[in-house]
């Protein structure tokens, strides 16, 4: 599982921090995390500053919503 913290200044997300990583066992193999995260960390930052209004992803439960990027966007009133 990933532990994620989102930092905001006003209504903009200024930082997305990954606190821990391990092999979740399903699709999330070690290699996908290791390959994609260093590349995508920068892209994700740009995406936040580029002002998205929503996030499309695999269906979350009502509990999962609180941890989702969509939930993070809305808690910030973006």
């Amino acid at each position: 599982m990933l532990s994620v913290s989102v930092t905001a200044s006003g209504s903009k997300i200024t930082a997305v921090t990954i606190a821990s990583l391990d092999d979740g066992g399903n699709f999330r193999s070690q290699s996908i995390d290791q390959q994609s995260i260093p590349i995508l960390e920068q892209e994700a930052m740009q995406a936040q500053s580029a002002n998205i209004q929503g996030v499309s992803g695999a269906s979350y439960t009502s509990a999962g919503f609180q941890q989702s990027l969509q939930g993070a966007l809305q808690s910030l009133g973006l």
Partner: protein
Amino acid sequence: MTLRADGDLRAGEHLVGHDEVVMGTVFSFDVALGRGGARGELHVALRHACALLHRLDALLSLWKPESAMSRYRSGALESLPCELTEVFERCAQAKAATDGWFDAEAMPGGMDPTGLVKGWAGQRALDILVGAGFPDAMVNAAGDVATSGGPGGPGRWRIGIQHPGSRAHLLGVAAVDGAIATSGCYERGPHLYDPFERRLTSRFASATVTGPDLTLADALATALAVAGPTGFSFVERLAGYEAVAMAADGTTRQSSGWRFAPVDV
């Protein structure tokens, strides 16, 4: 988080929104008021849309033994409500459009339209807002998004696509004209079912489909995640629908007309 008569709206700088807990998840509404009606009228429209979602949940939920869908499956339903008839028709259309990769009838336990119900409900909820005079609106049905217009001013709604390997990252951004739906197993674990091999499996970590209608986009995303690369053949055949998918090794594949939106704007 049920919408109350006295308010309970998220109010941002440009957008008014609401999150409704329904169907075991959260449906998020965002509306730009610029071209539309007043805030009070929006509240009425949102209440109608949320009432529809709860009514569809009561009819179609497989987790509620008293729902019409549950009773249909156990053979205890004598006549079909029109909503079930419509959902079954949409399932049949989706099966034909996906060469059988989306097959609600082949699911374990019998007829199971779950793979498109949230998309169908989200599209109907959006249609209520647009019909009530709010042309710049968006409904996010737990990751499957129906949109109309844009967030105010020129330009479409910009939707990030969740990266399947990391909750903190996007695999890209799409400027959406209509709907965008994503399917994968990274949120809830394995649940995608291969109707040909009759087992739980998926061949993409994430599959995203854009197009005019969220019901079909939702079914296409589910079918593409199950089918894997071969699924791009049915996406290419459908006018107006495009897809991007990421495999478990992090490689992506796109349909011929897929366009990511620029990230820096």
